[in-house]
């Protein structure tokens, strides 16, 4: 592989080149298994390998890729990357600078894996899924049961002409169950451990065993059937307690994306959007309650957003984004950090695979826990709602106006959890919402979640990112039924 890296680095000689970065993936493996109503809905193994080359000149980037690793293809890709950079000059480029970063010589990173998910017998994995799926069917109303698991493993070689090289093997796994119940025109879905495929982590198959899907499935089926006849919450402003999984998504959408410096600098304006945060606000903006402390931590064990080095070859690090409610940092790349005059990149640049250009992506963006046990969060609440597990999400292109729906709600009455609520929705504006945070759960309520489907970029890229969050309480939030 070193030969191919050297070939790509040296294939193009031109005085206009400032840097060349090469990523070779060999291979990236994906296994997706899904049992749906007792049948195999997905039984898929995917493997890809190839090369991506990004070049930098004084004014433009250029990127090219091919899904082949023969010498002719690698050489061709390097030439195409320079050709792309030259083509980009057609549109009046501006000077391009990046931060200086320390060299990395033969860096190494590998996920901590006890049980390689690709070595676990298929029969065992399918048996687990079959059993979990069957356990979802708690009554005739359950029309569809689904149990799924996914494993990814990417072996990557990186080298740059600026003296950084590393090799990494990253393994991600995840699994979940989901049931759909129908009664008349009413359709309810309920998932575990959370929606959209379950929970995911950087680990081996031991992570999936620990999810205990078979044990959780009957409760999922029973609860979704009960939701069919549950009332919707009334429309009002009330006290909202969010479960850890829903709060993780709230952090993702209203803090994570809003603090991506490429969005802040309008580099994503045409597609994903920009941000309500402006560069001048760093270090000054009150983002929310003083209880709010948020970090982006790519060194966190087990996180989907953890790695040894990012796709610019910068070592992983932990960066504060919000300290006691004040915005103190952003998610940065070498280019965006340089534009702001920051001394170094925050090492958040990742690509979906060798075939995509690296972009700023969330790592593990975590809301740190507070000091209140779950029962204490509730005991001050005379009347409110507790919402759990995302069902729908939407937020505007500056990450201000949001609306989330969850799979399930519960009344809070006189400090205790009460009956189920179906189709709950809450909405708000980012700074007001975070400003209304008045209690944070302690470490026992905090959980690290894997979000495997964060979309960004053109052509589209899906990133797997992590979010840790406790249970939290917000006052005077708009809640209604969907």
């Amino acid at each position: 592989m070193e030969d191919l890296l050297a070939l790509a680095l040296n294939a193009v000689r031109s005085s206009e080149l400032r840097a060349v970065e090469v990523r070779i993936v060999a291979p990236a493996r994906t296994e997706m298994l899904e049992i749906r109503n007792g049948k195999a809905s997905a039984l898929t193994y995917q493997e890809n390998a190839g090369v991506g080359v990004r070049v930098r000149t004084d004014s433009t980037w250029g990127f090219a890729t091919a899904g082949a690793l023969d010498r002719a293809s690698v050489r061709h890709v390097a030439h195409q990357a320079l050709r792309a950079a030259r083509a980009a000059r057609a549109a009046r480029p501006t000077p391009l600078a990046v931060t200086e970063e320390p060299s990395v010589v033969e860096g190494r990173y590998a996920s901590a894996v006890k049980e390689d998910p690709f070595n676990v017998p298929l029969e065992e994995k399918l048996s687990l899924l079959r059993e979990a799926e069957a356990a979802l069917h708690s009554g005739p109303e359950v029309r569809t049961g689904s149990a799924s698991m996914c494993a990814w493993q990417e072996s990557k070689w990186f080298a740059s002409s600026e003296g950084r090289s590393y090799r990494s093997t990253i393994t991600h796994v995840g699994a979940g169950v989901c049931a759909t119940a129908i009664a008349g025109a009413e359709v309810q879905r309920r998932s575990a451990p959370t929606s959209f495929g379950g929970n995911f982590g950087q680990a081996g198959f031991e992570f999936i065993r620990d999810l205990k899907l078979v044990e959780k499935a009957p409760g999922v089926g029973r609860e979704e059937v009960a939701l069919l006849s549950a009332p919707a919450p009334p429309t009002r402003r009330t006290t909202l307690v969010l479960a850890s999984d829903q709060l993780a998504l709230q952090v993702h959408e209203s803090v994570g994306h809003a603090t991506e410096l490429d969005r802040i600098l309008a580099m994503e304006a045409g597609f994903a959007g920009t941000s309500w945060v402006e560069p001048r606000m760093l270090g000054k903006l009150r983002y929310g309650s003083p209880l709010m402390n948020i970090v982006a931590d790519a060194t966190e064990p087990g996180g989907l957003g953890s790695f040894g080095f990012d796709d610019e070859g910068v070592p992983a690090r932990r960066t504060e984004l919000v300290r006691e409610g004040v915005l103190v940092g952003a998610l940065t790349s070498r280019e965006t950090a340089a534009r702001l005059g920051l001394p170094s990149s925050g090492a958040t640049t990742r690509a979906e695979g060798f075939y995509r250009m690296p972009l700023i992506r969330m790592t593990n963006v975590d809301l740190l826990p507070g000091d209140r046990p779950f029962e204490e969060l509730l005991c001050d609440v005379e009347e409110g709602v507790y919402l759990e597990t995302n069902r729908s999400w939407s937020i505007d292109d500056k990450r201000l106006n949001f609306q989330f729906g969850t799979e399930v709600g519960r009344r809070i009455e006189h400090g205790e959890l009460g009956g189920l609520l179906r189709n709950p929705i809450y909405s708000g504006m980012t700074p007001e919402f975070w400003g209304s945070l008045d209690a944070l759960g302690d470490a026992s309520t905090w959980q690290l979640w894997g979000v495997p489907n964060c979309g960004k970029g053109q052509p589209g890229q899906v990133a797997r990112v992590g979010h840790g969050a406790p249970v939290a309480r917000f006052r005077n939030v708009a809640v209604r039924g969907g």
Partner: protein
Amino acid sequence: MVGYDDAETFLARLLELLPVGSAADVRLRASEFGTMRFANGHIHQPHLERLTELSLRVAIDRRLATVTTFDLSRSGRKEAVRRALALARVAPEEPKFPGFPGGGSRPPVVPYSAATARATPEEQGRWAARLIDGARSSVEDGRVAGVAHIGETWLAVANTAGRSVRTRRSIAAARVLVERPSQDPPPSGWSEAAHFDLRRLDPEALGREAGETLARQAPEPLAPDRYRVLLSGSATATLLSELGHLGFGARGAEEGWSALTRRWGRRVAPEGFTLVDDARSPLSLPQGIDQEGLSKRRTVLIDDGIATGPVLDLVTAARLGRRPTGHAWPPEAPWGELGATPQNMIVRPGSARSLEELIRETRRGVLVNRFHYVRTVDPARAILTGMTRDGTYRIERGEVVAPVRNLRFTESILTALAGAELWGRELRCYANSDERGAVSVTAPALLTRAFRFTSATVF
């Protein structure tokens, strides 16, 4: 590297690697694209790709499994076969699997532009620059962002029942956003279009059009409420694309959670509103076959206001006792949640001659130029939520009177469709994805009498 002309021979040889008596289908998919992404007035992410992927699905006693690989070498192919067989042996049985379709007729020849497929990176860069220049010509201090996506995909499919077919698809798609950063908050405008032939798109005009949708004054607040709404072609296409998933998707129809489950054969839109899926039409981004190698069939989805039925792939058609319509996604598509869905929707033209005529017909309402981040709130009722962006205006007495701050809608697309009063003669093709399986919707601007906004933002 296997090319389009070698693809069928390559696939035939691959099928020979299977044990005698095996059943399988195999796909070779290629994308050869340039994506010139621009922001702040210059191309900041120029991307060239050439990817070819093999997808093999085997069936052993109705037990199905799929393997994909980029490794097209003989050893790569043999490994793919070995893995697929190993997976299929332990798979649960799919009792309704009908077997792979036999030879049949050659797929339809669909419109294709070699000039688009072969556009060089330099031509792509210049074309993107023309988009930027067009936008700047209409907004002098404008900040321009967007993308030009130009190239082709091709697909070859063969199976052990004797079918061997291929198709190629040329795509040119442009999206332009222009902002005026000197205003606080900066107003923005938007334009987009797609075509199978790059030469049929005018980049300068698209850039200018984005500038023309940009507000000249600060947006006013507008109270969230139910309004008559005039949707641009882009906004109409976004909603119809969602209905494609929620209403006409095979999986929802089969499992009973489709928004149209209880509405097949019933009126869901006014008389005169017809929606088809027609992958052969030059108004769309044409493609000849689906991922199972079946010819794309023109499928009527809404016939003069009446919902007719879902689109189907091999397995969902068998489960429902119907014929497949040629709308299969790749068998390895993640989770298979939606099954087959429409991929080339086209609205039959309406009677309004222009957007201006539609504005004149609106006594009081809201003009929406673009939607953002549209997501499903309730699939069974097709309730969606999303934001407006890049040009939202108040209409009074048939005239656009003021820009308004962006609004969040929470509404059933079925309500919006049932309330359609008038729509345009002019159709435009919108590609809602840059991925290799781009979905297109060809739609006009549409006026609907009932559309609920539930909150507003501050810009």
